[in-house]
């Protein structure tokens, strides 16, 4: 098993990822998380629209998994702060997310992520955040 495959397997072991129904697709070191549409993910049943928190959760999961790949860590990093911008209403269809690790420091990493549905160039939401690297706590006294 490659490190990437191990991380995809690690994602599958997260109960909350299973609750959402998230699936990982890996091409080289680039990760795409896929969230197939399901009725329980809806926030507004009239439109209907995905819950913003679900789209946010998808991007955060993508960010921490991509960061674990980039930092070659077996452990998932911890979220320090995350900001989510909502750009379009999430339709009742499959949603995709990719993350870009902007900077990995000694202790903290800066990561951006985007979520889209039909068109990659029409994101429905964007995320930026800071994460505490997973292996750091074992190093600190």
């Amino acid at each position, binding site marked *: 098993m490659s490190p990437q495959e191990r991380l995809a397997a690690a994602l599958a*072991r*997260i*109960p*909350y*990822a*299973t*609750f*959402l129904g998230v699936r990982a697709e890996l091409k080289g070191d680039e990760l795409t998380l896929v969230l197939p549409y399901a*009725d*329980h*993910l*809806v*926030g*507004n*049943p*009239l*439109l*209907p*629209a995905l*819950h*913003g*928190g*679900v789209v*946010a*959760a*998808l991007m*955060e*999961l993508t960010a921490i998994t991509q960061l674990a790949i980039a930092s070659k860590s077996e452990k*998932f990093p*911890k*979220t*320090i*702060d*995350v*900001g*989510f*911008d*909502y750009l379009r*209403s999430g*339709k*009742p269809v499959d949603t995709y997310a990719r993350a870009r690790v902007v900077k990995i420091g000694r202790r903290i990493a800066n990561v951006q992520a985007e979520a889209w549905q039909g068109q990659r160039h029409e994101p429905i939401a964007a995320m930026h955040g800071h994460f505490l690297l997973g292996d750091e706590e074992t190093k600190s006294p």
Partner: protein
Amino acid sequence: MSGETHYGEGGDVFERVKTMMEWTPQGRALGFELTKLDGAKVVARVPYRPEHVGDPETGVIAGGVITTFLDQISGMATVLAMKEPAMVATIDIRIDYMRAATPGRDVFAEAHCYKIGRNVAFVRAIAFEDSVDNPIAHATSTFMVNATRKFGANLREKKK
């Protein structure tokens, strides 16, 4: 009238906010429950459940659960501040994590819409187990108010 805050005048406000909270399928799936209205503040609970866990090693619930919870309760605080309840839509939300949630414990959150205008509402929210003085996370968010769209709007193809 813009710029005024109403905090749910008239009627059974608690029932109204509770109904809106339970109207959301994802909120029902996560078990969100309105516990209290304290003036302009909305207080709610999300139960600890094994399927909410984000870190299988520690049993800490996923950040996504906290995000969805804080987004939802912040939206509820916005609705509470509106004279006529209408749909709201999150513009942005930022969440700072002070610490991990305690495994095995329910999480509460309190949200306050401290300013509402004709178009935009501003909200603060805090997630905690026992007291806001020992917070898990803090959220700052903005909402579009009166974001009502047509029934089934997301099912129609966009006109080219």
